[in-house]
């Protein structure tokens, strides 16, 4: 596996992918050997992939769409080598894309937020305007609209509109690691009347958790990618739930399939149905979530899976 410049300990998709690799190794009883190389700069992408090719790795997992071109280039040079790439579509007959329709999970998050808000305003913001980010924001937005339509309410979403595809993003040079920027964005939302914030911005989102903790209950947060109750345990008291992205499961499936000779270049798409995305447990907030809402969420989830609820986001990955 080749990490991107975030490194193996990024508490995000590199770490998740590596967890998936290790799961695959232990599930196979040690028959699958795994290793990784970190990329210090973008310059390393090509040479790191090449090192793993010459090491004789059967399957190479590259993490992040930033490595798409480097992966495709390596595949052209080594036509028999198997690859998987996280967060990008399949490109070529030997590269499997691992993608996540997180709009589905975020839809549940939006519905949940709309039901839980006391002020009638919920907020979301992104790190940068990547499709992998805005797909979450679209789903969140749609979930709120669906709640409004069902209940005849008028809960507003600050920070994003699926219709205009315009919203709030971090503006610093390090949009996924700008904690102070995330804090000020969240505080602005709070002053505009929002009481739930859904940051889709990696480390920048930790700033939003900080703002929520400082607000003494006036602002709470929904975490993104993994269960924030564990990954950001210092802020567990303000994390109502998390919209998850099952990178580890996807990587494990892909690696195991490749080992068993079942490699496919059809993209893996994580959905609610295959646990590739979803809503994490409520943890500390469990007592505050009414049983009626929990059963509604279960219905909404089932309806998304069955196709009764159609998610319209144009940012959803397609196979």
């Amino acid at each position, binding site marked *: 596996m080749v990490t991107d*410049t975030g490194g193996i300990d990024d508490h995000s998709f590199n770490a998740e992918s590596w967890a998936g690799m290790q799961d695959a190794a232990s599930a196979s009883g040690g028959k699958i050997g795994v*290793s*990784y*190389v*970190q990329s*210090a*700069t*973008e*310059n*390393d*992408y*090509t*040479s*790191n992939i*090449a*090192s*793993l090719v*010459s*090491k004789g*790795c059967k399957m190479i997992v590259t993490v992040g*769409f*930033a*490595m798409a*071109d*480097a992966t495709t*280039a390596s595949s052209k040079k080594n036509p028999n080598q198997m690859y998987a790439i996280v967060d990008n579509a399949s490109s070529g007959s030997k590269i499997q894309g691992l993608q996540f329709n997180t709009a589905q999970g975020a839809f549940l998050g939006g519905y949940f937020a709309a039901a839980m808000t006391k002020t009638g305003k919920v907020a979301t913001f992104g790190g*940068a*305007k*990547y*499709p992998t*980010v*805005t797909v979450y924001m679209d789903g969140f937005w749609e979930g709120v609209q669906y709640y409004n339509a069902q209940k005849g309410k008028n809960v507003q979403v600050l920070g994003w509109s699926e219709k205009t595809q315009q919203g709030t993003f971090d*503006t610093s*040079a390090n949009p996924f690691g700008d904690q102070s920027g995330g804090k000020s964005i969240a505080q602005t939302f709070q002053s505009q009347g929002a009481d739930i914030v859904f940051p889709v911005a990696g480390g920048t989102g930790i700033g939003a958790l900080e703002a929520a903790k400082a607000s003494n209950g006036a602002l709470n947060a929904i975490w993104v990618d993994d269960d924030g109750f564990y990954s950001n345990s210092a802020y567990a008291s303000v994390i109502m739930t998390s919209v998850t992205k099952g990178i580890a499961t996807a990587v494990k499936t892909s690696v195991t399939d490749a080992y068993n000779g079942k490699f496919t270049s059809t993209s893996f798409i994580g959905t609610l149905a295959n646990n590739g995305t979803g809503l994490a447990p409520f943890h500390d907030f469990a007592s505050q979530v009414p049983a009626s809402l929990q059963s509604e969420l279960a219905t909404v989830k089932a309806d998304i899976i069955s196709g009764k609820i159609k998610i319209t986001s144009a940012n959803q990955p397609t196979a």
Partner: protein
Amino acid sequence: MSTQTPQTEQPHTPVPEPSRFSRIVRDLFTAESTPLVTFLAIVLALLVGAILIIISDPAAMRELGYFFSRPSDFLNSAWHDVSHGYQDLFKGSIFDPATLRGTPSQFFGPITNTLEDATPLIFGGLAVTIAFRGGMFNIGGQGMTIAGAILTTYVAFQWTGIPGALQLVVAVLAGILGGVLLGGFVGWLKAKRGAHEVVVTIMLNYVMLFFLTNYLLTTTAFHDPTKAGQSISKPASPNAILPHLFGPSLNTDIGLVLALIATVVVGWFFNRSKLGFEIRAVGLNPAAARTNGISVGRAQIWAMVISGGLMGLIGVTQVLGLNNPNNNSLSPNIDAGLGFNAITVALLGRTKPWGVVWASLLYGAFQAGASVMQANDGISTDIISVIEALIVIFVSAPQLIKEIFRLPSREAAVPGAAS
């Protein structure tokens, strides 16, 4: 421009050039580090790296826990970690004995990776060297690299009307121009407005980075519409890409030839040309140079112009070279830290053109080998960064090396001896 006015004795000139700062920097770069000291610095850094490799292996550390009951366990795995790590570092950067019967691309693969990684460092090291010999410290490599990369990219994807390889030539010249413009600006601020080049260059790094990331790569002129949401420019046209030097299966491009030509030219420039002599004179003692009729400002501007042009060439190889990960297009991290690594390379090369080449080869080898070392032995590439940094520390503290290895320290090198 050429103000060769009779300015013989003007002790009240308001240019306080030979400041304490520049003296410290000069001592750092030309410290009495003989080749032996440099070699020992490398050995010492590798030794420290070996200790780090052992510490970072949990199994070895567990065995250290019962060292006194069975020392052989720990010693065996420690030796195994270090020897395999450094063997793979060698195999990944120079050559792998296992490929003796392999294909030529396997056999020459590692060394050509090293050469490719060394190429931008040579340009950068030479750039820092020239500025430094002119008494200035150019830490604006990032900004100048970006400036060069912007112009070279624009020519490479836009001016496709230029026939054949001529487009590549124009793209390379555009890259040099980008660095020259920024370097010349710094030189002008230094010479004519008295701004300190360290402050100006490091601030321009930010100016260029934010200009590139937050403005240029969002414009329709540069942004690649197929890369929705990603800050990546349109890719260079195939004609403008630096061709392979040793055939398509080997990872070295023609940029290496440009780097070696640049080295020869810089060597000639310092030893033979009038301007090179003037820049050296100004670097050694601006007051004396001025007294002898050399225009200090002019020499400084030229030094920064040439330094900037060389930094611009990093931008060229970064965009049009084989290491570019995005189909030869421009992205925010295009400088990849090379502007700063250039300083350490110049320091290790003792600001001599061929010294810079050797230092670049060493660092290029570290970069190429680190990836193989991590892939095969699970040794973090960060350890290589530590080793690189330690070499610089040891080289710039020659007295430390001499005491560790008990070398006699009386042969004081001639300070600032040219070439």
